[in-house]
């Protein structure tokens, strides 16, 4: 399963050719939440602009860990279709959370601290990569890297057993994925990609029903794309394998 340079890119399903990189993937071309920043309140503007302008430096992960966790995050939330100017920083956000010990308000009984869990998890991923491909995770092709991570998602990693005995693999998987998506979908580039209107105080929204856009939002314009052929992450399967993973309650606030 040798990797080619393009096998990380999504493709046009009709031609099978890799899509060109875009400044803004997604179905809302021209939509920019940042273009509305003069309508936001000061405090919100400051905190959102800081995500573009003040990317925190690495203080928690070691240089070796940074190399590995960067490669992992690049597969948990791939950005191969984004041009270099519009990639969203993820590792720095996770590093900042762990360095500042910003907890989510709880730790599952029997789990190590979030910091230790992330460190252990990276060791586990490295061991699975060695076991499956006899190479370092960072040297694998994107598809190979995904197939390593898929074993964690499925709750059945073939190596690193001493680590998974200390930390249930599905709990680590959910911790990792929720940290990664928490960084990506906090970024205004991601809001533009998915057509989320973003901050709206003090102006508010006025077109509430029927999915209609505000005057400053844009209509959806879909195009066909498909994940890279053979990508394990394109399948939707339950976390923890066929039996639905139990005992992992939803994280955010709803009602």
């Amino acid at each position, binding site marked *: 399963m040798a990797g080619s340079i393009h096998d990380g890119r999504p493709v046009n399903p009709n031609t099978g050719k890799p899509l060109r990189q875009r400044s803004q*993937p997604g*179905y809302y071309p021209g939509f920019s939440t940042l*273009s509305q920043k*003069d*309508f936001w*309140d*000061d405090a*919100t503007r400051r*905190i*959102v602009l800081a995500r573009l302008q003040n990317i925190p430096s690495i203080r928690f992960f070691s240089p070796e860990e940074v190399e590995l966790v960067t490669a992992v995050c690049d*597969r*948990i*939330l791939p950005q191969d279709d984004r041009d270099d100017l519009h990639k969203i920083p993820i590792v720095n956000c996770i590093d900042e959370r762990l360095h500042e010990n910003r907890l989510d*308000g*709880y*730790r*599952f*009984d029997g789990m190590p601290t979030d910091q230790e869990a992330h460190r252990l998890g990276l060791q586990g991923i490295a061991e699975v990569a060695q076991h499956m491909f006899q190479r370092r995770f960072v040297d694998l092709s994107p598809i190979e890297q995904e197939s390593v*991570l898929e074993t964690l998602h499925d709750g059945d990693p073939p190596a690193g057993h001493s680590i998974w005995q200390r930390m249930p693999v599905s709990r680590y998987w959910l911790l990792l*994925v929720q940290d990664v*998506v*928490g960084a990506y*979908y*906090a970024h205004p580039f*991601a809001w533009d990609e*998915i057509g*989320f*209107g*973003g*901050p*709206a*105080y*003090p*102006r*508010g*929204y006025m077109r*509430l*029903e*029927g*999915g209609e*856009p505000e005057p*400053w939002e844009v209509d*959806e314009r879909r195009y066909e794309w498909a*994940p890279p052929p053979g990508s*394990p*992450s*394109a*399948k*939707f399967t*339950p*976390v923890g394998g066929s039996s639905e993973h139990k*005992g*992992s*309650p*939803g*994280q*955010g*606030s*709803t*009602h």
Partner: protein
Amino acid sequence: MKKPFGGSFGAPKHEDHMLGARQRIELPMRRYGNSEQVDYCIVGVGSAGGVLLQRLARAGFSVVGLEAGPFWDTERDWVSDEAGSYNLYWNELRITGGKDPLALGANNSGRGVGGGSVHWAAFTPRLHPSDFRVHSEDGVGVDWPISYQEIKPYYELLEKEIPVSGPAYFPWGDPHGYPYGPHPMGGCGDILVKGCTRLGIGVSIGGPVAILAGSHGDRPHCIYRGFCIQGCKVGAKQSTLISHVPDALAHGAEIRDHCMVSRILLGKDGRVTGVRYFNSNGREVEQKAKATIVCGYAIETPRLLLNSACPGHEAGLANSSGTLGRYLMAQAGNVVLGRFEELVRMYKAPPAHALTEEFYETDPKRGFARGFAVQTVGPLPISFARQMMVAKGAWGWGMRQVMMDYNHWGAIALLGEILPWEDNRVELAAEKDDNGIPVAKVTFNLHDNDKKMIEYGKNKVMEIMQAAGAEEVVQEARYAHLVGGARMGNDPRTSVVDRFGRTHDIPNLFVCDGSVMPTQGSANPGLTIQALAARTADYLISQRSEVFTRSTRSTTQPPIRYDLSPPGTWGKGVPRLT
């Protein structure tokens, strides 16, 4: 792109402390000395603490509220942003375990003046009359020591004070109407209405929610921006921070923020003398008080009482029954997500704006006791991505793909009654917080009736989503809210506090928050917590100084005080129901 009139929106150019877009208060407030013995010390200024503080101050008592989190300036501190709202929640370490562990933090725990009411979605249904007689009617759980009729006038009063928007006629439980009109619908409300209507299920639209459909005093109406649970910068959604705290301060109450109470102090005479706490400088000091009311919610209240163990009270203060920390409850809150061919854009409008209580009461045909409600939710992108992580097992390209369809998805949720069980509890963990105080360990297990309810309820919500026309329906198991842990009851052997929140064991120590609830129904607890606080306040005020000196306890409910409400409560219309 167009610019706002007069240029970019900036911070307000004045020195006042802002509570919402138009409400400003003058600080400093009245200050008491640590050695000055105040009448009441309130631990935790949240949903209950805020109401108590306001009532007691208005009635002329000297009262100090100690709050672990900050006194928010909403213009400075709050943002229209998911990740940026991190500080609204109680994010300090707690250990969560059991067979069905609860998520804590952002899911159910507030920190800062206003407490959980700062980040609630603001659904305000009442409990039903049957909720107070669960054991008598269904043979499960336990009866409340009070009836619906005893709390009803406080529901009516708080619905005007906070105030509540909703339909003129709300048909479930004890039918009633709301003082502010219903809100316009958003995408998820339309889905709930469509699905329910096709299945012949009645549905309430535009409320009941504690979100203003029209301006109220110095609070503007809702602007439908959808960031309710990130803290309402507008001031349209109620929190006690904006509805009761300003009036409390105007009547001489003091709030000390960034003050973490570590211990309740017991005197030689078996009465509480005050509290010890870490002040905003991290120094441990004491506040003397004639009576103390713990309002820390279902986890921090038991934790504080357990951490206050002392000779004669080795198992924790007010724990002679052994029930302190037990009978903790969360509601089943499974979120059902549906993908539609057309766009929904569920980030607009308050997440809470339509619900049905058609399945609230016990139906023997369903094979379990009690029931559930179905309500709108409106997850923003980060929450939605985390739901998809579980509901579809999404990651990698699958995550990117489903998130690009964010605007095609809508969400509605179960709110189901989980019964009180002795083994669901708060204890102390071996771990300690930064102040060296042992943290809480929470254990949660679903029991047979709970599992049957969740299975039935989840399927019913999915059926509604399908009937609304969703082409794909998935769900994520989760829980919402917390109550119990210091339940009220008439029998000191099986409960922690009496019908007014006074601990059975110590005559001048009270608990007033969600932890006193013996059962929870399928109603969001916020309104009930505030109504119970107003009722406890009336009781305390009617007792005058007897609470401070006597050990005898009156169990008679005093008449409701209609003269202690914040300004602007009266003259609002509630359609009269006959």
